[in-house]
Every structure is written in structure tokens, then in C-alpha cells.
């Protein structure tokens, strides 16, 4: 099957004809339109299309608008262009040792010039390949296939992903089947972008684009790739790449720099490609601050916002303020394209600001995973997110059209987590096996399929029972070969947090001494950010008693590096976001079991579990941990399948309302009511108060409310 990836080409019409021709030929392979960009010593070379197929090898298509005449000098021009493309691609690939055979390149690129017609034969210019769209099959049939052992390294090189994974040496690994040895095998596998990642990274429509993906599906890498690709292709565009978590800045900058080098062999121009936090800080500019400055509005800082709107609503408040302050002005937009990572954590007024200050055709690309939302805003629908016009029509709509760059992409393959860990994360995140019922669920039922689940039985319809499981192609095969479900996920309860800390220290000591893991392979996550600083100390002390060095990341500043060689990282959930480690210990899981704001608590658990690249340990203490363990047991007993009754849209709305985030006022009110109710029950039970002391109408009203809610 032919896969067409729609990058940008100035000869897009002719390239589409080539794509159609290849489709009719029934060839297998990938046709990259307008990709890759190659850098020679003195220029950036744009390719019309590149075709990679086992059958026909590696082929560059170069489109000529006019057919040369006999004896015409322009034949030399075609020849020169082919040579230039050949050497640029060869040099690019030759940098990769995995693509060399001795002193030669293992795969020889072919360059075919596509002409409108070939009225006359070209002069004898040895090796020149020319074709019209119609004669393409016969020219391609003369090309040799490449050795399949080079396919993965070739794709990795073309997709610029060869340098993405820092390879650990793991020279201390002695045993064949230790955890360290398993990681060595996992890390040695060559990454290739999958079908969806290729589209998400290379295709940019002349319109907004939404990319949704699971944790570990490569969202951030894809976005950084896209930013670098757009920047290389359109160096005069003002592009903003923005994000929510401060600590992402370093990671995104490094990725963009690496990809820009791969594309253009040059540093990015950070004046044009601006990597900025959504808000900004004292030392770093932000998207909000840029817009405020651009519109001569006062840039509101955090303290202003906090005192005016409260900590939780601070960013929302300043965005609304700026939106209102600029709504009647006809102000020049700022950016040609804006790319937004972690969109689930950003508020809709921010999106509306972006919409207002991005030039037409509004190339706004936003990436998110709904379940990683740790903030106070549920991802709204498109109308709510970007707004509507005077007629009530949504400003942004998304539609995937055949033969055009995709507008709405879901990345379904999770490369980071085992399918056991991911299913568990979804089960706990949604509360699938929770006694009191589901906590939340996707509104869009088709998303289950998009994110890599298949129906085992039942139907995904409101009111119906359904059983889902991960599709076999939604995770890398090596998880099944190298890991097992009993060890991939372990859940354990303790009597006290001290006992929990001692057990973690013992386990980590074993990880380091017997399992051949390195300290920076291990991440300890503390879900409650309010207690993480002090709880981290307890764990750190327990580790120190066993001679294990550890550090609490993000206590002092978000600029802290998460991992440090020779030291086990301890982190709160916010700092852990965007990071991953082979062995993850999630402590104090009982904090996420129940209570108010359950959606946020369950999302915290989801985010924590999905930091694990191989093994995850869920620890906690007290009776709530026992209940959480029962939920985990249910997932195991169901063979890592999700069995539930699909709630109706009304039920989903109600769940959202029950488990919503609360303002401090609401929290106070609920706490007070709980306390009073508790006191009443206690007083009646102890005989200090008679039921009859409560006025009959109040008793009746209470009974009525309770009965309605229970039914």
C-alpha cells in the first residue's frame, strides 16, 4: 500500500499526479511530498517528492515545468539539478554509519526528473533518468530494490530520528536477563516514525490542525519536528512554539535545535522561531506577554493575576482581560504559525488570543492528551475553544480530506508504556472498576478506536456494556518479548508512610545491586504537590540510610534538571510531566483514590503511571489504598481489558459536574457541610439529639434529596 505524506512542494499539482500514478500502480512504500529538506555546503535544497519502497529503492522526483528541446542547454541544467540532489541526499545519508557498506553508501539514491512530455531524446548524458507521469511505471521498473536490512536505519535517517534517543552505554550490565539487560535491548531498537507520526510531523494544512495522542505517543517530538521543518522551509515566517510546563523549555529547544540541524545543517533563528512559555516568567518572554506588548496593554504578572483572580484562575483571568482589551481593535496579527504543546493544560481564552494574533489561514497546531490534564479546565469543544462568529458558527472546524494534509490526527501507538501499564492507567484514570462508578470518559466514543483500543465484545453505545483491549499493533512488540505483566505493574499497600518509604528504599537498593539499573533509571513520583516537598524528604532519608543518593527535582526551581547521573530522582507530579523513566515508583497513591476534584486526582494517577518506560510500582498506605488495590486487581482479573457500561451524554455531564475542580470557596462550603452533617449523624447516634429535633419538612427534604441521588 502506498502511503502519501503531504509536506509542502511548490510543484504540488504535478506531485499529486505522481502520487495518483503510484496509487494506480499498486506499489508499496511511502511518498513524501516536499520532504525532506536537504542541506549542502552552500544551500538548502528542497525536494519535490521522495519515494521509499522496497521494490524500487530510494527515488527522488524532481519536477521540471518545461521539456527541453533537442540540443538545448537546459538538458545540462536538468543533469546538474539531478547531480545536486543526488549528492545532497547521499551526503546526508552517508553521515549514518548504519547506512554504509564499507566506504560506499549501502543504498544508492535515484533521481528521476519528471517532465511534461519528452518530445525528443536527451543527449547522451549517462545515468540521466527522465520520465513523464505516464512513463513513470516503466522507468521505475528498471530500478533495483534495496537490501531490506537497511530499511529501518534508512527510515530513521530520513525521518531525522536517529539521534533522538540518547543511548546509554550500560557497560555495568553483566547478566543476560537483568532489568539493565532488558533496557539495553529496548534502547537498541531503531525508532521509525509511524504512519500517524509522519503525518503529524510533516503535514501542515493551510488551516488549524489538532493532534491528539496518548502519553508516550511522541507528541512533543512531533511538534518540535514540525516547528523545525516549517522554520527551515519558511525562514521568513514568524513562528511561535509554546507550552504550559516551564521545564519543557529546555527539552523543546534542544529538540528543535537538533531537528533544524538535521534539516538545514544550521542553528535555528530563534528570532523567527520563538520558543516561549504560554505566559512567560521574569527571565523568559511568553506568548501572552508578547501579545500584551504588541497591543500596548500592561503585561500582567503572576502576583497581579493571583491577587485579582486567585491562583487557579490567574492565567485564565489575565487572558480574558487581554482578550477584552483588544476585542475592538483592528490590530495586526503577529505570527504566521503557532504550535501549542500540552494544550490540555491551557485555558480557552488563551486559544482565542492565539487565534486573533495568528495570520490567516490560521495555522494553529495544538497537541494534547485529555487525560494528562492536571489543571482546572476540561478541554472544551472547538466552538468554546476558539470562539464563534456573529452567527454562532464555529471559527475553527476540522475535516480530513483525501489527498490533502490532515487536519485532525490521533497518534494511537504508545511507545513508552507497556500495554499493561497503559490499560491500567486508563482503568484508574477513568475509574472503570471503581465501586462507586466511572469518574469520567471520552465524550467522543470513536476516540477509543483512534487511541488503539479494539472492541472485544459488546458495543460502544450509550447504555450498552462493552469490553475493550489494546490492539496488538498499538504497542511495540518487544514489550511482550522482554517483559511480563506480573512484573510490569505491581501494586502494594502498607500500614504507614514510613513503612512505604522503607520498602521503596529496599526495592531500589535491589534495583541497583541486583537488577543492574542505574540510579537515573529510577523516578519516584509523589502525586500530591502540596506535600511532595516534605514527603520527598522522608523517602530521601530512607534511601540515604541504604547508601543511595537521591534528589528532589523541582523543589527549588523548575529549571532543575530532572535526572542526574548517580542519583535517584524524586518529583511531584507537575515536575514529572513530560519526563519518563524505565522504573517508576508512584507513592501515596491513596491520595488519588477518592474525594473532591476526583477528575484531577485520577488524571494525576494516569500521568504518573504513564511516566514508566518498562516497570511501574503503585504504592500507598491506609484503607483508601486497599480500595485502590481492589481496582487494580479488577484490571488484572479482567486480563487487562476494560469492561464497562457506556454512560449517556447526560450521565457524562453529571459526572463532570460531580468530580469537577472546586474553587476554594466551594471547597470551604463542602467541607463545612460535611462536618455539620457528620456532627448531626454522630449526635443522633449517640442519643444527644433526637431525629424529631429536626423539623419534619427538613427531614423530608433531606430524604427526598438522598433518594433522588441514589436512584
Amino acid at each position: 500500500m502506498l502511503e502519501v505524506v503531504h509536506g509542502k512542494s511548490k510543484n504540488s499539482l504535478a506531485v499529486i499526479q505522481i502520487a495518483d500514478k503510484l496509487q494506480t500502480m499498486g506499489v508499496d512504500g511511502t511518498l513524501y511530498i516536499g520532504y525532506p529538506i536537504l542541506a549542502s555546503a552552500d544551500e538548502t535544497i528542497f525536494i519535490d517528492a521522495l519515494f521509499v519502497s522496497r521494490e524500487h529503492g530510494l527515488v527522488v522526483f524532481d519536477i521540471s515545468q518545461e521539456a527541453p528541446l533537442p540540443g538545448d542547454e537546459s538538458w545540462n541544467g536538468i543533469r546538474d539539478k539531478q547531480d545536486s540532489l543526488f549528492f545532497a541526499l547521499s551526503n546526508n545519508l552517508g553521515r549514518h554509519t548504519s547506512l554504509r557498506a564499507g566506504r560506499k553508501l549501502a543504498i544508492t539514491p535515484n533521481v528521476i526528473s519528471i517532465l511534461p512530455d519528452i518530445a525528443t531524446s536527451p543527449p547522451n548524458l549517462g545515468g540521466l533518468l527522465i520520465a513523464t507521469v505516464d512513463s513513470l511505471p516503466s522507468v521505475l521498473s528498471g530500478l533495483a530494490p534495496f537490501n531490506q536490512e537497511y530499511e529501518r536505519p534508512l527510515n530513521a535517517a530520513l525521518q531525522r530520528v536517529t539521534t533522538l534517543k540518547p543511548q546509554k552505554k550500560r557497560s555495568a550490565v553483566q547478566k543476560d536477563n537483568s532489568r539493565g539487560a532488558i533496557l539495553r535491548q529496548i534502547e537498541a531498537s531503531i525508532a521509525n516514525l509511524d504512519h500517524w507520526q509522519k503525518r503529524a510531523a510533516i503535514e501542515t494544512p493551510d488551516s488549524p490542525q489538532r493532534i491528539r495522542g496518548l502519553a508516550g505517543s511522541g507528541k512533543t517530538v512531533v511538534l518540535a519536528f514540525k516547528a523545525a521543518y516549517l522554520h527551515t522551509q519558511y525562514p521568513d515566517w514568524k513562528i511561535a512554539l509554546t507550552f504550559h510546563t516551564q521545564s519543557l523549555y529546555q527539552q523543546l529547544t534542544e529538540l528543535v535545535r537538533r531537528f533544524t540541524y538535521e534539516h538545514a545543517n544550521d542553528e535555528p533563528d530563534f528570532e523567527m522561531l520563538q520558543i516561549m512559555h504560554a505566559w512567560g516568567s521574569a527571565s523568559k518572554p511568553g506568548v501572552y506577554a508578547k501579545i500584551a506588548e504588541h497591543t500596548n496593554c500592561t503585561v500582567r504578572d503572576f502576583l497581579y493575576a493571583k491577587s485579582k483572580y486567585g491562583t487557579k484562575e490567574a492565567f485564565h483571568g489575565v487572558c480574558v482581560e487581554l482578550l477584552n482589551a483588544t476585542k475592538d481593535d483592528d490590530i495586526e496579527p503577529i505570527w504566521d504559525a503557532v504550535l501549542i504543546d500540552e494544550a490540555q493544560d491551557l485555558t480557552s481564552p488563551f486559544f482565542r488570543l492565539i487565534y486573533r494574533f495568528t495570520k490567516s489561514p490560521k495555522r494553529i497546531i495544538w497537541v494534547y492528551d485529555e487525560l494528562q490534564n492536571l489543571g482546572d479546565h476540561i478541554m472544551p469543544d472547538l466552538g468554546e475553544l476558539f470562539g464563534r462568529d456573529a452567527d454562532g458558527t464555529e471559527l475553527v472546524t476540522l475535516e480530513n480530506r483525501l489527498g490533502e494534509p490532515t487536519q485532525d490526527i490521533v497518534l494511537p501507538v504508545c511507545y513508552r508504556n507497556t500495554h499493561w501499564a497503559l490499560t491500567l492507567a486508563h482503568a484508574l484514570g477513568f475509574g472503570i472498576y471503581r465501586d462507586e462508578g466511572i469518574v469520567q470518559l471520552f465524550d467522543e466514543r470513536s476516540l477509543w478506536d483512534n487511541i488503539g483500543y479494539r472492541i472485544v465484545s459488546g458495543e460502544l453505545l450509550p447504555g450498552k456494556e462493552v469490553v475493550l483491549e489494546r490492539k496488538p499493533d498499538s504497542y511495540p512488540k518487544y514489550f511482550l518479548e522482554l517483559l511480563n505483566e506480573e512484573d510490569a505493574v505491581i501494586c502494594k499497600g502498607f500500614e504507614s508512610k514510613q513503612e512505604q518509604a522503607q520498602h521503596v528504599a529496599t526495592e531500589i537498593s535491589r534495583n541497583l545491586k541486583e537488577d543492574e539499573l542505574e540510579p537515573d533509571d529510577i523516578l519516584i513520583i509523589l502525586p500530591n504537590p502540596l506535600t511532595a516537598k516534605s514527603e520527598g524528604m522522608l523517602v530521601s532519608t530512607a534511601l540515604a540510610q541504604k547508601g543511595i543518593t537521591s534528589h528532589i527535582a523541582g523543589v527549588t526551581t523548575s529549571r532543575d534538571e530532572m535526572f542526574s547521573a548517580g542519583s535517584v530522582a524524586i518529583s511531584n507530579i507537575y515536575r514529572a510531566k513530560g519526563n519518563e523513566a524505565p522504573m517508576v515508583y508512584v507513592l501515596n497513591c491513596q491520595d488519588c483514590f477518592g474525594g473532591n476534584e476526583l477528575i484531577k486526582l485520577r488524571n494525576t494517577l494516569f500521568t504518573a503511571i504513564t511516566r514508566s518506560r518498562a516497570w511501574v510500582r503503585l504504592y500507598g498506605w491506609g484503607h483508601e489504598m486497599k480500595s485502590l488495590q481492589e481496582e487494580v486487581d479488577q484490571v488484572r482479573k479482567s486480563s487487562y481489558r476494560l469492561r464497562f457500561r457506556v454512560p449517556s451524554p447526560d450521565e457524562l455531564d453529571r459526572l463532570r459536574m460531580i468530580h469537577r475542580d472546586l474553587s476554594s470557596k466551594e471547597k470551604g462550603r463542602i467541607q463545612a457541610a460535611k462536618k455539620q452533617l457528620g456532627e448531626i449523624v454522630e449526635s443522633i447516634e449517640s442519643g444527644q439529639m433526637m431525629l424529631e429535633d429536626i423539623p419534619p419538612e427538613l427531614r423530608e427534604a433531606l430524604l427526598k434529596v438522598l433518594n433522588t441521588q441514589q436512584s
Partner: protein
Amino acid sequence: MITTRHVRNHIQNLIDLLISSKIAITANPAVIVSHDTAMRVTWPMKSTLSSVLIPFGTIKEYMRILEARAYSAVLFDGALLQISYDIVHNRIMGHRLCYYPCPFDIDRDLLLEEPILDIVEAYASSESTDVRLRSPIRFDFSRREGATYASSHVHLLWSHCRCPVFAPLSLGHFVRFVFSNFYPDLWCRHSFLQEWPQEPTRRTISPDQECSLHFTCRDA
């Protein structure tokens, strides 16, 4: 007998209690390192504090200490405690006992939830009126040949200010001084603070130094 291990355990116990009682939001473990001829019980030194370059009692110095994690504990209001002793042959030969109040009145929930330095930077860069003019109080003990000041002294307001102190201080002296004076509510509420022993130390103040105003106390 004062052993290095005894001092280390003593400090660690205090830190653990401060954490478990939620008086401190974070802390560093007490560690033992060799320092010249002494064994020093201190916080883990990650980078050298260039106190020469940064003026004493400034927001910049406070932030630099945070950045270098050069503290024993950070209290719930952002105040820092630095506790360090130099021991030679089972005797205290030096100490640094510093109470460094936070220069801002910071939202307590924010301090718990967010990285501390990020918050302080936000306060420092805003036109906040929450800034508080409070001097660090640092009890130092060091014997210097030819020094004209008391070997045990306290720095207040300026680094060159060295008010004489009667003797090197035990941890109990420092705990009592800080919590009974600056956190009277906590002092009343937590018996471990009140009961922390003020261990007697050898008087080092000279008769001349005793003639001017100085810090002193009797053994309990």
C-alpha cells in the same frame, strides 16, 4: 563527649521533626564532610557560595542560597535555617547557625506547591509591596588568630557587624532563640521545640567583650 555522629544525628532529628510537624516544607539531610582539620556536619554542598560577591542580607543572597540549596531546612514561610558545626577532637571548633527570614510575605500554598525559587523570582520581579525588611541572624563561631572580635558572635544587618556572644551555641540554644522569639505560636504548640536541650558549652567571651552589650544566657 561531642562526636561528629552525635551532632549529625542531633541535627537530622531536628530536621525530621520540623518536616513531620510541617514547620519545614523541605530540607537537606545533615551530612559529614571533612573541612581542613575538622569534620564538618552540614548540608550537602553542591556549589560554593560566593558570599564575598553578594551583599549580606539581600534578596539576591537569599535567592543564591536557595539556588545552591545551601540550607538545612526551608520553613513554611520561606525562612531558611542553616545549621553547620565543625568538630575537632570531639570539641566544637566552629559553627554557622543562621536564621534567614524570607524577604517576601509569600502565599503559603504557593510555597508548598510550586518550586520555591520560581515563586521568589516572581515576587522579586513584580512591583510587589509584600517585600519585608528583615535581617538574617547568623551566629558564627570561629577562632581566628589576631581577630579583634569575639570568636562567638552574631551577624545582624551587615556582614561586618559581629555582636559578641558568650560562647559557641548548642543546637538547643539556636532552636529556642529562633522559635520562641519569631514563631511564638509554634513554640507553644510543639513540645519538641521547648524541650530541645540547651547543652552547656565552654564560655569564650573575653572580659573586654563582656563590657559591651552582648548575647548571653545561663545554663538552664
